[in-house]
């Protein structure tokens, strides 16, 4: 068997992923309605949604991969490219801007050697901007993975990411 043929026989979605998706399908009128949940489930298992995953999900939801990609690319927290082990979502909305988030972003970029949208070479972090995190009284804030860091300072960034290049 050619390599390609073998690949097509391997189920791309794990039993766990399928079970979680099917649980969502149980309470909607048609399969494609769970497109976003399904993308999130697969992403939770694999970190991101590859073309292969996308096609497998689309097949399972009885929709075209193109349509599903149209959905996937609409949402900023569905990652269609690999991301690091932890995604840093730095709030750059108004209250955090007033409190200096631009300076903090420059600091993180220099500490980790990555610009917005990039991933560190050791694959630990991806840095992304995000809309107001609903913690404006604690501005500036960021999410690292699922953890919210409030009242951010340069010292706090040093503790988290090390001194970096500067």
């Amino acid at each position, binding site marked *: 068997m050619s390599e390609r043929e073998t690949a097509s026989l391997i189920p791309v979605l794990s039993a766990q992923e399928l079970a979680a998706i099917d649980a969502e399908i149980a309470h909607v009128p048609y399969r494609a309605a769970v497109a976003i949940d399904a993308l999130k489930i697969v992403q939770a298992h694999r970190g991101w949604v590859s073309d292969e995953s996308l096609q497998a999900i689309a097949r399972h939801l009885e929709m075209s991969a193109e349509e599903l990609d149209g959905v996937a690319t609409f949402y*900023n927290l569905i990652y269609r490219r690999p991301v690091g082990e932890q995604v840093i979502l730095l709030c750059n*909305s108004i209250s955090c801007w007033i409190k200096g988030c631009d300076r903090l972003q420059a600091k993180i970029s220099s500490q980790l050697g990555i610009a917005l949208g990039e991933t560190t070479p050791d694959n630990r972090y991806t840095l992304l901007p995000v809309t107001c*995190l609903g*913690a*404006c*009284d604690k501005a500036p804030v960021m999410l690292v993975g699922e953890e919210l860091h409030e009242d951010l300072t340069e010292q706090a960034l040093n503790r988290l990411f090390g001194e970096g290049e500067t």
Partner: protein
Amino acid sequence: MSLELPGQDRPLTRNVREDRRPTDLAAYEANGGYRGLRSAMGKLSPADCLQILKDSNLRGRGGAGFPTGMKWSFVPMDDSPGHKYLICNADEMEPGTFKDRLLLECDPHQLIEGMILSAYTIQADVAYIFIRAEYHKAAQLLREAIAACKEKGYLGDNILGTDYSLEMHVHASAGRYICGEETALISSLEGKRANPRAKPPFPQVSGLWGRPTIVNNVETLCNVHHIIERGADWFQSLGLTGDAGTKMYGVSGRVKNPGCWELPMGTPVREIIEEYAGGMADGYQLRGFLPGGGSTDFLTTQHLDLAMDYDTIGKAGSRMGTGTMIILDDKTCPVGFVKNLMEFFARESCGFCTPCRDGLPWSAQVLDDIEGGRGLPEDMDTLARQVTYIGAMGNTHCALAPGAMEPLQSALKYFREDFERHLNGGGCPYCDGGTA
């Protein structure tokens, strides 16, 4: 956090603790929780509940202030088969808004009790909580709370032994501000791109999967069982002005004590900023404020004695919006401030209609030019034209683009000299836009 002052009724935050630890089912019940549900189920008809809600004058807390009872009265109440849906809008992404997070994280059962009675009133059989992706903790707490309610018989089949049944689901979103717009939210819940839909048909008649659907904000729904339990007159008596109830107010920016407090509706702006937020931080003076999130018009020092309610703030030329104020201080550049907001709205445009998709990036570009010292005198006219064309309701498919123009149009009015200083002086006169 919530300042529980003696003699003052703060229904929404009575279970909010200083350390923001969540209130679990046992603690919630111990403090009178699910009493409103018990007192209504089997005793009040849906029509009774709707009448109480209408009489209470509760207005939607998601930003527009639309009367909740009236909104619900458009839901068909015949016995025709098929689902009806209640959706809680917990997408909270309006820049500068941080009130729903507090209610969700500190007292998830309050929302659920409010939703059960709301769903009962419109006879919905399925309810969704549409929560933004980043509220991990709140989503988890809600899932646990729903499970606990099912065990107790507050949710599921035959609630409290009546013939009313309701299932409730949490849907965690995947990002994008536009999902908070109620028809975009419905598209998103159906698994599609979150493009807003044309109205009519209104969601009350044809919403989720073409069925009657009500979308309400977290804070709105949290009020409902209190109103049904304690009555319309009680709710009306909470407000200081003609507007009923309490309101979650917030202040962020350079004040001493940024935060979020439940206060009587109509509390004066000055009291919120000076007493609750502690006044301006040392070395800063107040220049202006957005009363309720990033898509409301600036007000200034001349408006400090106004009551924070929908009508008063509306008459002053702005909107109360979400009730969470963003303070512009004297060391922060108004042009930079508006540019930050405009870049946000441009980024978050869903791309469906041209004035928004192409107009907002254009505005952001003009503002960036002015801020960066590349502005031309005619840019002022360009901005004014953009405000006229993009800001007019009806020129765009939804309210995102008109909302984006509100801070800009009011900044042109109140802080015009700042724009001119940028144009004449070759860029921003503030140090780092004032955010250093």
